[in-house]
């Protein structure tokens, strides 16, 4: 805005409120245009990513539960197989021998030397203990009425639910029936609950997970890590058999359940949702962070661009108003010129009439008229002719021709201009020094436009020097074209303004348009030339116009 004249900048009319609405609309429109696609695309991608990740997590959990359940199933199947193998191979006679049974009991220990069985007993078909190895005194006990005994007699193999039994300690047994010459008998082993708990409690969740077994009635068959105890009633009731793994969301937890194959126990794994969906939450948080960051960036960009746009609009609007003022003035001047054109045409006609009349008088007084009259009539005629020529010149100046590239004599243009400005220069007592090169080469350029350029620059010089000043015009032919310099001894251009003198709308004069020199620059550049200015405050200004010999677009 530095190129807008100071007087104009002081205008009290404010443009900003006018553009407030534009600012609001642009911000809203740009924000909406940026955010709606961002939300739609980002939301869609987020939904797709979380769905895929959640599905993947749950599938992994499902696989882990199946593996866990299979491990328990396998343990029970292996233990059952151990008992079957021992009972089938050794036979009742051997097994009822205390040493043999103890040897078998020891051989059923695990590789780490820890037995998965607490005790081992041989029971006949009447429920009497034939042999027993273990920490309890159970040799005298009869199991004829025990539910597990009845069940094993029916099914050959039986794995019981956890019960207290004679020893009053929660446990469960694996019993295998064998039938030989001596009749049916049972080998029964009690599974070490601590050992078994160690297998079942391996939960998929590391921090918050819990895994346990419950029977069909929802009674705990192993010790849960939290919320219950062995043989206590769990929250699971009304259980129905199903295939595979069932996943449920309950109170911020995922419950994965699967029925064991060898025993009607439900393997339950509980994991906190926060833990299992940890990766998902990380993705969500990253997405939200990126979205917020992007939104802030977009919004800031929108604000910045809108501010720039509105600021540029304000500048343009001010310039337009300024130009409007100039245009009104120019239009007024143009119409005045048009009027003066008609006026001078009329004067020219009058002069023609005077000329005709003078000739007529000369013809009438051809004989007998005095020399005085003759001389006076001749003088009238020559004055009329001179006036007509001056008017013609003036009319040519105020009505420039079409922009045509022709042969142009710069010296002639300058002379015409000075002649045109003669009375103004005389009135102000301005001396004009002409330093023209003799036989200055003719150039090909636009005569009317060049006239305009020189007229602007010389008039600037005239207004700068005011009274009793001096203007120097110099023309020289150089290698690439003609150089014209217009110098004056006026106050010069202040240093801080020298770079702006050719800017449109820059003026230091209150009545100036700020367009004159800008137009000069534009014209000379279009004609393939250049224009520059040198000045020192107090020492006048020095305009250099360089024009090529041939028109160079």
């Amino acid at each position, binding site marked *: 805005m530095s190129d807008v004249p100071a007087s104009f900048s002081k205008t009290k009319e404010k443009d900003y409120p006018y553009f407030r609405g534009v600012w609001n609309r642009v911000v809203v429109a740009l924000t909406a245009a940026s955010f709606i696609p961002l939300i739609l695309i980002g939301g869609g991608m987020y939904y797709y990513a979380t769905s895929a990740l959640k599905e993947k997590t749950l599938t992994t959990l499902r696989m882990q539960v199946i593996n866990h359940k299979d491990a328990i199933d396998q343990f029970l199947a292996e233990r059952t197989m151990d008992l079957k193998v021992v009972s089938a191979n050794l036979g009742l006679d051997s097994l009822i021998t205390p040493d043999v049974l103890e040897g078998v009991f020891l051989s059923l220990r695990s590789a780490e030397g820890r037995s998965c069985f607490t005790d081992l007993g041989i029971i006949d078909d009447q429920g009497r203990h034939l042999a027993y190895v273990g920490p309890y005194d159970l040799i005298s006990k009869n199991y004829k009425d025990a539910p597990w005994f009845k069940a094993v007699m029916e099914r050959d193999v039986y794995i019981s639910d956890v019960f207290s039994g004679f020893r009053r300690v929660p446990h469960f047994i694996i019993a295998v029936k064998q039938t030989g010459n001596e009749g049916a008998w049972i080998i029964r082993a009690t599974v070490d609950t601590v050992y078994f708990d160690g297998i079942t409690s391996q939960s998929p969740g590391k921090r918050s997970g819990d895994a346990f077994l419950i029977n069909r009635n929802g009674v705990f068959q192993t010790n849960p890590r939290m919320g219950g105890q062995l043989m206590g009633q769990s929250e699971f009731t009304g259980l129905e058999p199903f295939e595979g793994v069932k996943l449920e969301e309950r109170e911020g937890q995922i419950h994965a359940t699967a029925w064991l194959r060898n025993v009607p126990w439900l393997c339950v794994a509980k994991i906190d949702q926060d833990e299992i969906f940890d990766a998902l939450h990380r993705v969500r948080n990253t997405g939200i962070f990126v979205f917020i960051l992007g939104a802030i960036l977009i919004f800031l960009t929108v604000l910045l661009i809108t501010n720039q746009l509105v600021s540029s609009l304000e500048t343009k609007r001010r310039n337009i108003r300024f130009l409007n003022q100039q245009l009104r003035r120019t239009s007024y001047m143009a119409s005045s010129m048009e009027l003066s054109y008609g006026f001078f045409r009329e004067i020219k006609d009058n002069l023609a009439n005077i000329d005709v009349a003078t000739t007529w008088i000369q013809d009438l007084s051809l004989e007998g008229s005095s020399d005085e009259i003759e001389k006076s009539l001749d003088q009238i005629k020559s004055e009329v002719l001179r006036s007509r020529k001056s008017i013609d010149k003036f009319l040519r100046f105020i009505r420039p021709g079409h922009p045509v590239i022709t042969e142009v004599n710069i010296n002639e243009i300058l002379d015409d201009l000075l002649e045109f400005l003669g009375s103004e220069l005389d009135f102000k007592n301005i001396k004009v020094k002409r330093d023209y090169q003799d036989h200055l080469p003719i150039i090909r350029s636009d005569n009317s436009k060049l006239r305009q350029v020189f007229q602007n620059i010389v008039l600037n010089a005239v207004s700068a020097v005011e009274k009793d000043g001096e203007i120097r015009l110099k023309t020289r032919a150089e290698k690439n074209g003609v150089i014209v310099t217009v110098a004056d001894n006026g106050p010069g251009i202040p240093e801080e303004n020298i770079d702006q003198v050719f800017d449109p709308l820059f003026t230091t004069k209150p009545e100036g348009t700020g367009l004159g020199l800008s137009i000069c620059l534009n014209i000379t550049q279009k004609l393939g030339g250049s224009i520059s200015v040198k000045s020192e405050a107090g020492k006048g200004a020095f305009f250099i116009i360089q024009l090529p010999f041939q028109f160079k*677009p």
Partner: protein
Amino acid sequence: MLKRENIKQAIDAISERAPEIGYSLNEMLGMGQIDVPAEGDGLYFLFDKQKVQVNKFLYFNEGTVPIEQGLLIKYGEMTKKQELQNKDHPPNYMQAAMEIQKAGLRLMVTHEIDYALTRLRKRSETLETNTRPTDYGHTGMESIETETGLISFLKKIKKNSLTLEIDPEEKDPSVSYRGVVDDDTPAHFMCFPFCMDSLMQVADMNLEFFHVRFLLNCLARGMEKNLFVCLMDGKILGLVYLTLKERTFYKGLEIKYIATLRGKTGDPAEPAFQVHRGVGAFLVAGVWMLWKTGPGNVNEISLDSEIGARWFYEAVGFESRGLSGYVLKAPKGYLLKAILIMANNCRDLRKSIIEEIGTIIGKQTKLLRKKAKNEKEQSARSVVIASIKECLKSEAHLEFAKVTISMLSKYKKKIPESEELIRFASEQGSGNAKVPP
């Protein structure tokens, strides 16, 4: 309707070739001295408040070429006007108006010649570059010589300001056939006479197809022998451009473009040209004569035309073929008359052609047996009678009169005009033709 960008495109094209003119036109466009109409359907622009009509056909076929040419003509006129205004003494207004008009046309033609010269020079340079010194065979050298010849010919055209004139008494070798337009005004059918005057005339006519750049392109491509004009008293009245259509077992002469002043689609605001009758038939007659006197292996004359011209082509013997095609079977009507006049002016015609024309006229005479039922038929009948009279007047070829008289005698009772025509034959003398008592 034209848009400012169309004008700008045209000015840019001019600027590339002539920067000085381009500058002026650009400035005038910027100042609104060149503008497009605010409303209206016509294809025109305004140059210094004057309406400049753009040939619609050329604009849609050639793009900005007609706009460029209109701008150049107006620019030339403007500079001349300015030059005359700057003169101290008052001008002779009629003479000045003519000078201004000619200056515009000359500038445009000169510009187009310069453009053609630039293209020819470029082509010549390419030829020189592509032809290595060792390869300077016959063809390469000939091409370069042709280019050089063309360049000097075009330069000569630029300098030459002679008007286009043909001496009717002298036998000019450039004239192919002599005939008449407007019933009795002598005209010449000839190859396009390339000179400043002829090109300026074409520029002024602003015909469809035949703009100055097209004509210069024909010259540059060596196709100028296919371009013919109807010239009357130094004025071009119409042009025709021919091509040879060749396919397996087929060779046809195609009238690619034909345009006459009469068929000019101009603006009523434009200066009116004097309209001459029979120019189209004259041009087709010239083509027919070329066909018949040329190499014998050309099968037919054909052309593609718009529906609007259907009546004319059918009236002179063309038959419709395909959607917009026409083929010339047997000339009739004004075409036959024009052919007869040309044949009468050509003494050294081959016997076969004379016989063919005789056969055609015989058939046409036979048609007079049928009475005219309406005005159209009556008009056609009048044309046949006029053609018969041409035969009877023939001094060059008595065969025409013989055939006509024998047909008239044969169908004396059926042709009401036969007696009158035979009497006319006696009056004319009709050479040695046997006039029945």
